[in-house]
């Protein structure tokens, strides 16, 4: 059950309000922005799916280094191509909203940082994460020596069961110690 034409049905609206952390205004705004991304003919489709390249034109996601991972995590398509339906879009906004709990945010943050989708953050994931954080340009990247030291330090600090990877519980343990995470893991339309 998706959206019909350009209007959101009233019972869908109340259902979305109950199941996500978004308020009514936020859901309506999301619907408006989503329909703007569709072509004329796609708008009459019952459950349109927007490809990833179009989603990435949104100003809120355009410059974010994690934009492709975000789309892939929230996408429900079988091809894993990062395309989003309206409900996927609502999921995205709900996880990044003001009232989402720390647990939901840390869960999705973990999945976004897990570049190879194996359920833990191993060395390769951590390296890609640090490279995303420090940017594209050469002068801001860490040298390989620094990278190795950094990854070792991270694993020393956060890998409690010493298996060489950071799993979800260990990640959530690290996140819970930082009070700024909830306010920085936000995207508002």
């Amino acid at each position, binding site marked *: 059950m998706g959206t019909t034409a350009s209007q959101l049905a009233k019972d869908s609206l109340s259902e979305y309000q109950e199941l996500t952390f978004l308020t009514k205004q936020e859901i309506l705004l999301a619907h408006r922005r989503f329909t703007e991304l569709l072509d004329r003919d796609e708008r009459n489709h019952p459950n349109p799916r927007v490809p990833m390249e179009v989603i990435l034109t949104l100003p809120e996601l355009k410059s974010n280094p994690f934009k492709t991972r975000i789309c892939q995590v929230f996408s429900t398509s079988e091809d894993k191509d990062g395309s989003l339906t309206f409900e996927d879009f609502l*999921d995205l906004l709900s996880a990044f909203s003001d009232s989402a709990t720390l647990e939901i945010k840390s869960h999705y943050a973990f*999945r976004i940082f897990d570049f190879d989708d194996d359920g833990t953050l191993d060395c390769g994931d951590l390296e890609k994460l640090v490279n995303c954080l420090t940017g594209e340009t050469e002068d801001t990247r860490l040298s390989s020596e620094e990278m190795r030291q950094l990854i070792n330090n991270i694993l020393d600090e956060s890998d409690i069961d010493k298996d060489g990877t950071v799993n979800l519980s260990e990640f959530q343990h*690290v996140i819970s110690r930082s009070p700024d995470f909830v306010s*920085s893991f936000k995207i508002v339309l």
Partner: protein
Amino acid sequence: LQQSGLFGPNVPQKEDSEYGQQGSPADENVVHDSFSQLIAEQSQNEGLSDAIELQHLQGNPDDKGRDNVAYLSPSENRDRWSSATLKILSSMPSRTIGRSRGAIISQYYNRTTELRRRTQKRASIKDFSRSARPSIRGYGVEVDTTDSAEKKQERLVKNLQDLSAVDRMRMLKEMPLNLSEKKDLRRLTLEMTKRTRSSSNLPCCSYLKFQIILALRHSWYSCLSFLHSLQLWQMPLKRVSGRFGSGVLSYFLFLKTLLFFNVFLFLVLGSFLVFPQAVYLPELPESRTPFTGLELLTGGGYFSNTLLYYGYYSNHTLPNCPKNNSTRPECDSRSLSYNMPLAYFFTIGLSFFITCIILVYSMSKSFGQSFRIDKSNGMLAMKVFCSWDFKVIKRSSVKLLSENICTQLKELLGDTHHRLVSNTILDKLIKLLIHGLSWTLCLGATAGCVAGIYCFSDYMHKKVRLSGDPGLLKEASLLALPVLVSFINLMLPILFQLTAWMEKYNSPSLRTFVSLSRNLILKVSVLGVLCFHWLKRVAGSANDDKTFKCWESFVGQDLYRFLVIDFIFSLLDTLFGELLWRLFSDKVLKRNRRPGFDIAKNVLDLIYGQTLAWYRPCCLGLLFTPLLPAVQILKLLLLFYIKMSSVMMNCQAPSRPYRVSQMTTIFITLLCFPSFLGSSVCVTYTMWRLPSSGSCDPFRGNKTMIQAGKQRIAELVDENRSLSFLADAHTYLVENPLFLFVGAAIFLWIVIYFQSQVVDGQRKIIALLQEQIENEGEDKKFLITRLQSVHERKRTPARNLPSQVSLWIAERRAC
């Protein structure tokens, strides 16, 4: 883990009972023997020797057809796992919870079960079998790996149905599944609920209760969405956060909070004080000075006989009907009477208490969020996982943020090296000298300026008393003191910044704290000397001079002047200071970077302004100028737009890290403690000790304000015997403020002590749990290597049996 699995289905029961008889695992040899005995038995059964304990596998070059291996950990002992092991590893619960739907459903099934169990009676502990792992005793961990996805979902739905509606909705919201699955779960739950409800006859009262709860919830949602639609300044705040990040955003959010506080105060005061007085205007004296433009600045002249000031408010019960004058329309016996002094007293007291409660609550909440129980020094992991600010949208700001993070990471990494750099004695001495010098400079400058204000205020006071009738020049000269104070407030922080440049600090947060404390000392001392000036000098000279006949109004006017001049100066500073600095750095220094927005300084300025309007002389301010919140609201609104445009034009994102929640906690604490506490002291002093002037306030005719209250309460008690307890309470609590403060202090101390004990206990538990998790990790490694060795054994059947046995014996000897 207890019984099943790894050692094969034919585990003899005596393993458990053996262990049970032998008792404590401290007897390591015993345990060790029983396991190896088990291994020996199993090897006999299977015809293989499984006698190898934890052993690192060597590369076996003659083993062809080796599976694809992968490195599990970057440690020196490279353990190679075969793909079968990898498959098992990847389906371990600790890994699947991060990504698989079925795992999430079973996790939430366990949670809902726990939730239900909390409301039901707990099963007694003797019902659970003894196990080698006391940690999972009593937790009914169900083995769910064999269930299919549908069955798991069914059980989850059943659990959800048994929860209350509120819990169910909260559970559904918190599940990290996608929306279509949540909709399915909800639909199934509702269907099941309908079915069970139609089958059972609910008593009518609980059905009614259910409907009421539904209606309340619906109205709560609509109320929330209404509040959200009123969101003030949403677009500008989004632009700021998109460009500058969370740090600068926190300044504007702080401004918004202060605005709402002021609106609340204004509504309270307005509805109880201003509105009744405005409806029943008192008679105006004939000699009323005409309105000239200067009044907006000085607050005197035309404004002195308006609603703005305390002196205007009547001291009688409204409507003020003299006995012999019956021509006024509102003096009918049917009209309501409104006791003005009592209303004044209680309204101010009420708003005072409510503000106190709101402040303490927000301070404790913010403190609780930023306080970390776990004292481990893990900064690096936290920096990597939590420092990306997803609100930042603009490309250049994203680049800046990346650079910022890179610098921080390099600093933290290099920190371990730098600590080893030796600090010679000479270096330390020089550093100490420089610090001492700058502190002396700052404190000396502060003391000098404070003394200057003291002398100047004395001089102005005498001048005002000695001069004749009020004229335009005299009004303007009253502005001199506020101008001086604002000028000092502007110039000294620049001096502080200059001295901070020559000092070198170990960490940026230390630098921020030092600058914050210096600014704080300046502002506190300035406010202190002003308070002294108002309360002692001005009030004390009430009897000497007719200008100060109504000293409360005079003080109110002075406060108004301070507020307005402070606002004008901050306007000038923003417009010219930041603009000039940007032009200077662009044209002269030719730097590409714009100046950063100094968050701490700006927030401190906000707090200072708020203090003037509210606290310190503030409740004095409220006392003397009930419309002061309205003035403050206007000022904050204008300040918001001006600061916003200035920041957009002139500044760039901060290049130094800014810990938002910690700083917000500090600012709210500053708003609460020096400001509010200081003001309560002042208010107490005013109400209890100062004689009110005879002529112009709601408490005319009484010695002090508190006696007015006492008199009123005595009157009330006379009318109504049952309220006599009020008089007693008044005597004990209000007359003896020391009793109140001491009692509150003891109570607070007890609460704090209790909480600190709780925190200590929690720290100990965290350390224990961490140790336990490490042990579990060791167990996991052990089991995985065993699994790997079993797999290897199966692939290379009994080839190296004699060598392995001798290896085992050698190892046993070595242990």
